[in-house]
């Protein structure tokens, strides 16, 4: 037998060797992403939105919840660029504050969906067999119920609140993360480097954590970006149906919903919140598309 403990490879003379700079695969992704003009534009809008959400108190010209009956239903003017609603609240301020809720809902709902869906998918994909089968059948059940109806039922059961809305949207998105992660876990599991890791004695937990999950990240990230967009849409749809956001919180979907009764006299009450949702979702989708292209190993060659 050879020398024990790998002493054959005695440490080479000191750390004199110069190494080339570390450039992680993410750097590569970023480089490709940067070249995609549309993706950069989408990302900029998303970043802008985050900035707006964070700086809402600074940016908003008025208190979003300050009612002023005398000033209600004023069309866009220099004083109120986007007009006022039926309580005389400034629409611009409400839309600015609304970005907070939309982003919050989007990210938390996706967080819920991605974490639980991802765990279920990774377990199913790595271990396979009956466990996988059971998990996937459960996902089938969730998929068989139209998303929005499932979400309505969940909100109905848990009660109307922002948190419950996020849970409902998260749960209804869960299957897609489970499926995406499972699919890539299945692919990764079959890769020789996973076999190699087992050959050098890595445990299941180590393989899942160090090999499977990092290599599933690309689809998870892409799916999550697009998922945030979808979650914002779903949450807005639920708010539109009158579920989820407590008044007087400024939220785009519920603003749109309550503006609807003034569709004839004050269409700007529905127009602007809808436009805001569209722009954000569009930006996220464009960014997600760009990210997908940058992460796609097929385009890497």
């Amino acid at each position, binding site marked *: 037998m050879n020398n024990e403990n790998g002493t054959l490879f005695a440490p080479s003379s000191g750390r004199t060797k110069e190494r080339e700079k570390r450039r992680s695969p993410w750097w590569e992704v970023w480089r490709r992403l940067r070249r995609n003009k549309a993706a950069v534009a989408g990302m900029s809008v998303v970043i802008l939105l985050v900035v707006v959400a964070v700086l809402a108190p600074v940016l908003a010209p008025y208190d979003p919840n300050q009612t002023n009956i005398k000033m209600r239903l004023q069309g866009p003017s220099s004083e109120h660029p986007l007009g006022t609603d039926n309580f005389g609240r400034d629409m611009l301020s409400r839309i600015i504050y609304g970005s907070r809720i939309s982003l919050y809902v989007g990210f938390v709902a996706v967080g819920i969906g991605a974490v639980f869906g991802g765990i279920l998918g990774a377990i199913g994909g790595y271990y396979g067999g009956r466990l996988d089968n059971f998990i996937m059948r459960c996902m089938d059940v969730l998929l068989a119920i139209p998303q929005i*109806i499932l979400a309505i039922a969940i909100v109905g059961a848990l009660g109307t609140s922002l948190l419950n809305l996020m849970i409902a949207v998260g749960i209804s998105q869960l299957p897609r993360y489970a499926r995406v992660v499972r699919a890539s876990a299945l692919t990764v599991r079959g890769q020789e480097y996973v076999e190699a890791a087992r050959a050098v004695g890595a445990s299941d937990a180590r393989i899942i954590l160090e090999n499977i999950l990092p290599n599933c990240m690309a689809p998870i990230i892409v799916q999550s970006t697009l998922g945030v967009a979808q979650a914002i849409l779903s949450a807005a749809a639920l708010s539109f149906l009158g579920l989820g956001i407590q008044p007087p919180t400024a939220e785009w979907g519920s603003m749109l919903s309550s503006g609807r009764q003034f569709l004839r006299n004050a269409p700007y009450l529905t127009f602007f919140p809808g436009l805001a949702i569209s722009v954000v979702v569009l930006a996220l989708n464009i960014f997600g598309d760009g990210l997908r292209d940058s992460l796609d190993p097929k385009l890497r060659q």
Partner: protein
Amino acid sequence: MLRYFLKRLMFLIPVLLGVSVVIFSIVHLAPGDPAEVMLGPSATQEEITNLREQLGLTKPLYVQYGIFLTNALKGDLGRSIKSNAPVVDEIMERFPATLTLAVLGMIFAIAIGLPLGILAALKQNTWVDALCSFFALVGFSIPNFWVGLMLMLLLSIYIPILPSSGFDSWKNFIMPTIVLGIQTMAVIARMTRSSMLEVIRQDYVRTARAKGISDRLVLTRHILGNVLIPVVTIAGIYFGHQLGGVVITETIFSIPGLGRLIVDAIRAQDYPVVQGGVLFFALCVGIVNLLVDLLYAVLDPRIKAQYRAAK
């Protein structure tokens, strides 16, 4: 092959069972009580208790579920608490509107989405592609309820040429079809484009081109046949999605469909209607998936062979 489909049909059973358990638990978990809704705010405790008993709501939940399940197996989904009409009748009376909408939406989505995707892929990296792709992306991103309201504003209020509610004439269907189909249209266009681009790169397309056959033949025979498979998959998935989307469309355009029935029932805690309606939706989704599988067999001989081989 028939056996394969019968088997697939059997696989629907556990899914439907799962759906019934999930939805039964969710609706019964909700606070509130259909008896109270029916009797209104003036009801006395006694009246509520009496009605609850009449409705069988005083029994333990598992017993209620058992009763529901045994009856459901006999094709009896119970009677609506609100209207006392058989749930099956309620569903069947509203299903045609929903089905019409969903099918029209799908036809719209395919009729617009498919050519759009093909065009974009054929003109890859030109302004035509950019325009088509952007159009699809916008269709994918704008909230459909907003589209509905804006269409209504434009076509019923500003230029009043289309009715804003009801479903009596073909005119009634134009706006709802667009609202319902727009997202699917976008998805199909995107899927068609990416699938086209993938197929175009395939060796067999290069082989076909190396044979010197016409571009039209390459497109129709060698590309489209293979493009359609993922497109059919996504269309199938979105058909189910559209069934959910009808909730919004039906609300905006006051169309008496299944989506609104279920949502109203959820809100009124009309348990039998919720359960029956959701189960029916799940069944539709299952059947559509099955049809998609059948379509695969038509489109792809490999899959057909698999079905044949499956026991």
